[in-house]
């Protein structure tokens, strides 16, 4: 879809919401909206798309109380502003949006959280992403390094780049709006998404991308939406397998889960954001004992996070149950870079090749 078509669609959807309220009021109905309930209990696996989506539970917000009415009023102001932004081809950050509401009197946002939540609601109702409303996140995009050539449509024209040849050592930074990105060409066998900058640089230094035909993606912790969309598209449109390489602790498993299955907060976008084919490469709890990695003791928070994962539908597989239970027994966790205790080359010469061939990727 072209940028202009996308803008037209977003505007149409926004006005559509307002129109529904207009009609409700004209018919003497207190205006309302319906939204899926956004809790862990209301996400379900969608067999067709292979991702986790919101289930059947819905909640209704109606203007029949002062709180509900003010909520809808805020949404109306927000729709009005976004419509205007689309018309003028401007964009803004979520934080700016919060400040813009200063002048909206009764509809002014009480806090940043509130405007963020309203935007998510609008995404769900309008069935387009916030980027389509010309909203920019504050969050950092991640970087790519590897045998991939791409084209980015920017405000300053169209740029073409090769992610090994035309970039510095920091790689190619993923822009906020991935819709402006096009993959032209590649010479890769698979994609490896990496949690920490240290490991990303290690693989780059050791020439892992060249030796194995890997596209390195630096996730920078819990990956931003744009990063997750890029991974999905690398998998989807280029047909490249995606593996995820994180630390060996419960918080890192959640990073994998958000890449592979989507997050609860953005389950309405799962089809665009999640890469169901993504596989977890490590650090696996079993690696800690197999390779005798330097490890830390689990904290209480770690233990309860692991236990929560045992009840999370996204981790309900034998593989994860075994690994998580093993970790709870060992009471240990290790970082990716702990492989350095066996030498700086161990991870690229031994560990990753072994795992990749186990997984049938090389």
């Amino acid at each position: 879809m072209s940028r202009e078509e996308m803008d037209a669609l977003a505007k149409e959807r926004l006005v559509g919401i307002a129109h529904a309220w207009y009609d409700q009021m004209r018919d003497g109905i207190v205006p309302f909206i319906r939204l899926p309930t956004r809790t862990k209990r209301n996400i379900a696996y969608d067999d067709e798309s292979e991702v986790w989506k919101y289930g059947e539970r819905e909640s209704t917000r109606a203007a029949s109380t002062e709180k509900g009415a003010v909520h809808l009023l805020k949404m109306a102001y927000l729709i009005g502003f976004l419509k205007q932004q689309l018309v003028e081809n401007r964009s803004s950050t979520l934080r700016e949006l919060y400040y813009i509401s200063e002048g909206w009197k009764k509809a002014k946002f009480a806090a940043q959280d509130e405007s963020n939540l309203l935007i998510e609601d609008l995404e769900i109702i309008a069935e387009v992403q916030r980027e389509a409303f010309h909203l920019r996140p504050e969050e950092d995009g991640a970087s790519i390094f590897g045998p991939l050539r791409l084209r980015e449509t920017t405000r300053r024209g169209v740029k073409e780049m090769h992610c090994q040849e035309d970039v510095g050592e920091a790689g190619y930074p993923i822009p906020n709006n991935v819709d402006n990105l096009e993959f032209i060409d590649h010479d890769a066998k698979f994609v490896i998404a990496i949690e920490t900058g240290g490991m990303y640089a290690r693989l780059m230094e050791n020439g892992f991308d060249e030796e194995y035909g890997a596209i390195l993606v630096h996730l920078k912790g819990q990956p931003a939406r744009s990063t997750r969309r890029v991974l999905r598209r690398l998998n989807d449109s280029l047909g490249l397998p995606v593996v995820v390489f994180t630390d060996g602790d419960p918080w890192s498993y959640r990073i994998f889960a958000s890449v592979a299955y989507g997050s609860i907060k953005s389950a309405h976008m799962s089809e665009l954001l999640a890469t169901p084919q993504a596989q977890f490469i490590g650090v696996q709890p079993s690696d800690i004992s197999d390779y005798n990695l330097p490890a830390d003791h689990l904290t209480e928070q770690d233990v309860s996070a692991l236990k929560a994962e045992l009840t999370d539908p996204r981790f309900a597989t034998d593989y994860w149950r075994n690994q998580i239970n093993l970790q709870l027994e060992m009471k240990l966790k290790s970082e990716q870079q702990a492989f350095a205790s066996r030498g700086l080359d161990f991870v690229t010469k031994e560990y990753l090749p072994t795992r990749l061939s186990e997984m049938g990727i090389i």
Partner: protein
Amino acid sequence: MVLAEDLAKQQRSISVAEFFEKNKHLLGFDSPTRGIITTIKEAVDNALDACEEAEVLPDIFVGIKKVDAEVYRITVEDNGPGIVPENVPLVFGKLLYGSRFHQIRQSRGQQGIGISAAVLYAQLTTGIPTQVVSRTGAKARAHRFELLIRTETNEPEIVSHEEIDWDRTHGTRIEIQFKSSLAAKKRLVDYLRLTAIVNPHARITADIDGEMTVFERVSGEVPPCPKPILPHPHGIEFGALKRIAAANTGTVEEFLIGSFSKVGKKTADEMIALANLKPTRKVNKLESEELKRLLDAMQAVKVPAPPAQQCLSPIGEDLICKGLEKEIQLDFIKARTRPSTVYGGHSFIIEAAIGYGGKVPPEGTAQLFRFANRVPLLYQQGACAITSCASQVNWKSYGLSQQGLPMGPVLIMVHVASTNVPFTSESKDAVASIPEIEREVVLVLQELGRELKTYLYRRDKKKQQDDRARAICSVIPEIAAKVSEIVELPLVDTSPIEGKIMRKVVAKKRTVDGKVRIDVNNYTAKEVTLVLYNLSRDAAEDAVPRPDFVDNMDGEYNKVWRRTLDAGEAWHIAYTGSGDGSVDLRGVEDGVKVVVDLDV
């Protein structure tokens, strides 16, 4: 080793006055600060008890006057029955002398020790004799004494005694001077206020070093004076049983029937049979072993509760409410007096009240007022069974948040009235954990909790209706305006929503650009005749339609319109003005009217 002989020579008796002189802390005179509160408490307790016995409405004066750097003069005067002159020296000049020690009934003071201890404290610290004036009736003159206590013998020393004229026809006045300080003044005032609350028939006038406070009575009825009863068979210890048995000349059966509450022939015989005794045995001839069996039997046999209505004097629900409302402004108040019941042979009654809103501080935990036999408990709240009961009630189910005690503008008052209030310690600041008492306190607080819940539910429902009215009449029109702008269509009319949802008579006031507009819509199915009041600083001389009546009061104009509206009819008033003030609608039932001021 004749040392034992030497030692024996040194041994001798110690008088109780000497003992307490050395152990003043036992009686609440351990610090000069506390001395004032203790003295006033003892004197006021005595005054209230005496008035109750004489069935007069208490009129008590409490005076505290600084007479020297460290010396204060405490005066307490009552209009009680007075004390006969022969007894005055004993009552005030001898420790352990009194009328209520051996009686089984609800009373404030008991030991016959408190006020004499104050006299002792005065002579110890200042040497100044205590002055007592007492008059027993209009026909007698007043007697004025100056008293000291002979410490070695615990006998009164009369320094002077004269007959004088006194303007009270009956009553007692005591004046004590001792070393003290007024550091605990706030607690003293609290004590007097709380005392006034649970003695709503008393007027207490306090002059604290020149500062006058009057706690006025709210009831003109003297509460009935509790009457002493015989001990209950379940409430007696072995030592006491042995003693009264030894002093009794009757048979076991006669003894049981004649010396205990609620024991008739049938019950007595059951006890005697269980103890395996002959009913005709003389009770004072029983062996210790037999008495022990008898005691076990007395406690095993079921006996009705003691006659509480006779020995106890609860305040009553009505007077509790009046007493509290007089001292604290409340939005809601409810009191409950539970039926009397029994623990270990002692009768007791639990009364409680719950208050909400008003001037009760809205932050933090509830205020808890504890009383025992009409005496406020000021110290050791944390150690008191009343507190733990109040914390163990599940207030959340009555709509309050809770951190131990409930949170918010809540006031809880609990009164334990008993022939024997079980305290945790000698300082009488906290009620001990007795399961029977705790059960009653929890029950009464749960009852009151349910009442509070009903009140809060009604209040919330009202709020909810107001909230809905604001949403519909104020916010929805703004949504309509914004939405119409977005879809680029004419402003959608929201009055159908108002009508459909409200089905009431709706009055809306809104001021825009110096124009005040009051809309009235009759969304009900019936014709109504209403009167609209609009009180504001606007004269509204250009009002359309003109008011039927205008009243100018202190620069405010009360404008009144009368109008009959058909079912579904809409009507409005407009005038130039600032839009302050209020709107009210009369002639329409509360349930079907909504008034919304959109300028607020």
